[in-house]
């Protein structure tokens, strides 16, 4: 069928074709999605089988939704929405701020409403297809087993993706108007990571919170909200989108109409404000700050290290990535820090376990700026300075701020009378080890576009480096944990494994040579 040129379907086909071509290179991600889908289907099948053994499992085809199914549905809807919103934020940064074809489209005779509709729909469809690909097997199994109302998951999911994409695009537009495209992209990425980290922590709350009387008291104080007639009760209108997942007619109607309204509002806002309001802040420079007079330095070492620190300080995105990565480590730390009686271990043990992993994350982030992101390697190589000396100074620029982070923790341990030497020793060794790994095997990445999703992925193409870094990360985590428990022999064995990883990295650098260019 011939699609009319310049129409919404024609433009949408163009957007989806670009997405499909990007996706084709990501076979690992697609494979992972399929495996996760199969795994979920298997788990659902086992659960349904086990449940049918202990209780009479009645597939509900008509009638009122059982309350015990509503709350998992609400949680599922919320989790899916957060995931879709995080994804949509990242994609909005690309489609509104990074895609160079937007100027081409806006300058063409195609209606801007059609352009923004296609952008919004493409973001929503891409996220929907990703989620649907994961859900199609388990939902299909449930439908085959008689839970036919679950077919409502898919229209609800599409509405959810449209709402998430609309909100994300409106936020992106607002940020672009206030900060300009480049800063908006960084802020959006930081926001997306923060949201994802919060969601992750939220999902881990049951593990993190001990069975404390205070926790129970708080829970009791808010139970009135869940009583019949309360704001959060089972019959509340707030849960209509979750009910729509079970083909509830009112839920489906309200969700559909609400989504259509939000989408219309978003497209109209984008249409009205983008051309008139957005272009101006992109080209208007911010007011220049009054600068203190700069004093040049003569000391070569200080010149190099100061330059690297300036580059680090002015790349908040990388630092935020590092700090948020620590968030994902917290639940694991809580598990590790508990002893056999489910009580927390000593402060020294916790610090010895946690700090090296924190240090490695920080080194990775700083190495991305100072090593992978070196923007003028030819300048360094054409200078009358030894490349080895520059490399050492760059390592110093990475390690000094990392080590500075551990000083207050060591101070607290000393004041508390806790053992601090193992923590500092493991921390210093881990950070040097990781910095050397990066120095010997790192590949260049474009620092200017590091906040955008596509360019960031360039750094992860080196499979061997990724594998060696994973071994290093897990190895140091295990070593730090064993060191906190005083298991000398295990520590020694792990140290040998880590030395092996370092040797592989060095050997590889001798074979392949450095591509960093300095």
């Amino acid at each position: 069928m011939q699609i009319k040129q310049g129409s919404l379907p024609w433009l949408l086909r163009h957007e989806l074709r670009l997405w499909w071509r990007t996706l084709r290179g990501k076979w690992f991600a697609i494979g992972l999605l399929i495996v996760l889908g199969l795994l979920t289907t298997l788990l659902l099948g086992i659960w349904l089988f086990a449940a049918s053994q202990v209780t009479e499992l009645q597939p509900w085809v008509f009638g009122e939704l059982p309350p015990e199914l509503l709350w998992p549905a609400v949680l599922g809807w919320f989790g899916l929405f957060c995931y879709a919103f995080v994804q949509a934020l990242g994609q909005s940064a690309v489609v509104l701020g990074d895609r160079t074809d937007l100027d081409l489209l806006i300058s063409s005779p195609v209606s801007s409403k059609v352009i923004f509709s296609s952008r919004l729909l493409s973001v929503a469809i891409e996220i929907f297809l990703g989620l649907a690909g994961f859900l199609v097997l388990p939902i299909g199994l449930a439908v085959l087993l008689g839970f036919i109302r679950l077919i409502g998951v898919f229209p609800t999911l599409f509405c959810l993706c449209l709402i998430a994409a609309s909100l994300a695009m409106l936020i992106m537009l607002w940020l672009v108007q206030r900060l300009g495209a480049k800063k908006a992209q960084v802020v959006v990425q930081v926001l997306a990571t923060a949201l994802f980290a919060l969601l992750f922590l939220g999902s881990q709350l049951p593990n993190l919170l001990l069975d404390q009387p205070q926790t129970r008291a708080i829970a009791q104080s808010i139970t009135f909200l869940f009583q019949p007639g309360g704001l959060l009760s089972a019959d509340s209108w707030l849960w209509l989108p979750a009910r729509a997942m079970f083909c509830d007619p009112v839920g489906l109607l309200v969700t559909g109409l609400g989504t259509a309204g939000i989408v219309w509002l978003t497209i109209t806002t984008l249409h009205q404000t983008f051309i008139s309001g957005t272009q101006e802040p992109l080209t208007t420079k911010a007011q220049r700050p009054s600068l203190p007079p700069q004093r040049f330095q003569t000391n070569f070492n200080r010149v190099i290290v100061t330059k690297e620190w300036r580059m680090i300080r002015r790349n908040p995105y990388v630092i935020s990535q590092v700090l948020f990565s620590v968030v994902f480590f917290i639940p694991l730390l809580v598990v590790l820090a508990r002893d056999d009686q489910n009580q927390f271990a000593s402060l020294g043990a916790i610090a010895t376990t946690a700090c090296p992993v924190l240090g490695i994350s920080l080194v990775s982030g700083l190495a991305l700026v100072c090593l992978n992101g070196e923007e003028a390697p030819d300048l360094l190589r054409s200078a009358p300075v030894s490349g080895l000396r520059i490399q050492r100074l760059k390592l110093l620029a990475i390690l000094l701020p990392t080590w500075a982070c551990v000083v207050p923790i060591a101070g607290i341990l000393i004041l508390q009378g806790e053992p601090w030497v193992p923590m500092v020793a493991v921390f210093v060794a881990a950070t040097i080890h990781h910095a050397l790994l990066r120095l010997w095997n790192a590949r260049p990445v474009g620092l200017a576009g590091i906040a955008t999703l596509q360019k960031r992925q360039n750094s992860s193409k080196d499979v061997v480096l990724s594998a060696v870094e994973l071994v290093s990360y897990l190895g140091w985590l295990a070593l730090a944990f064993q060191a906190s428990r005083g298991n000398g022999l295990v520590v020694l064995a792990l140290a040998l494994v880590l030395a092996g990883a370092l040797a592989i990295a060095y050997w590889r650098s001798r074979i392949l040579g450095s591509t960093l260019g300095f």
Partner: protein
Amino acid sequence: MAIALQLVSLSKQFGSHQAVNHLTLEVPTGMLYAFLGPNGAGKTTTLRMVVGLLKPDQGDAIVLGQSITRSPKAAKQHIAYLPDEPMLYSKLRPLEYLEFVAGLWHIPARQAQPLAEELLHQFGLWEVRGDFCETFSRGMKQKLVLAGALIHSPQLMILDEPLSGLDVAAARLVKNILLDYVSRGNTVILTTHIMEIAQQMAQRIGIINHGQLIAEGTFSELQARSREQGETLEHIFLELVQSGAASDFQTEGQGAR
């Protein structure tokens, strides 16, 4: 006259492709030398070997008496290199960039700071000294990189397409600065695809194709060797690289030296 740059049978091969093929050339001090050639002729590869960014497979480049392969530090001390894409740091301000470059060439702060400020005034960048380089236009970036080259007072400046992407005013400023720099006894080697620039500015011109020097001399000498009299450099260049007359020119050129 002293020799600023001497290439001795310089060669570089990438896989099966011979990028530079036993290139021999001398550039005297105190002149602007235009190094011309079609795309892929080996110009940039030659220049990158001269400044120590690429290791030659064979041969050597002697910069003011210092071999780039045997004593690279001493040779690099005299050179400034400006590639076609400006080597800048997006998150540094102009003065910070100049401080960094001065540091790389070990220029004392008391000498570098006033010179850096003077250069920013001269290049019209003083007003934007508080901005990051990432906000600069291509012309501003090119001017800042040129200021970075001048801050360590090199005796030989090597520029790869220095005028591409510059507006009229910026191009004139750069040309004037380069001519003034040469008039003070320094040497400039530049590549360009704009023949008028080479014809107007260069004292000597070298034309390279397939990694070999096919003609070399002043514009008048190249005109004299052409089949037709009174031709422009553009015509001579095209005649050389397209008509297969290279061998005649090369023989005559080598004979003339």
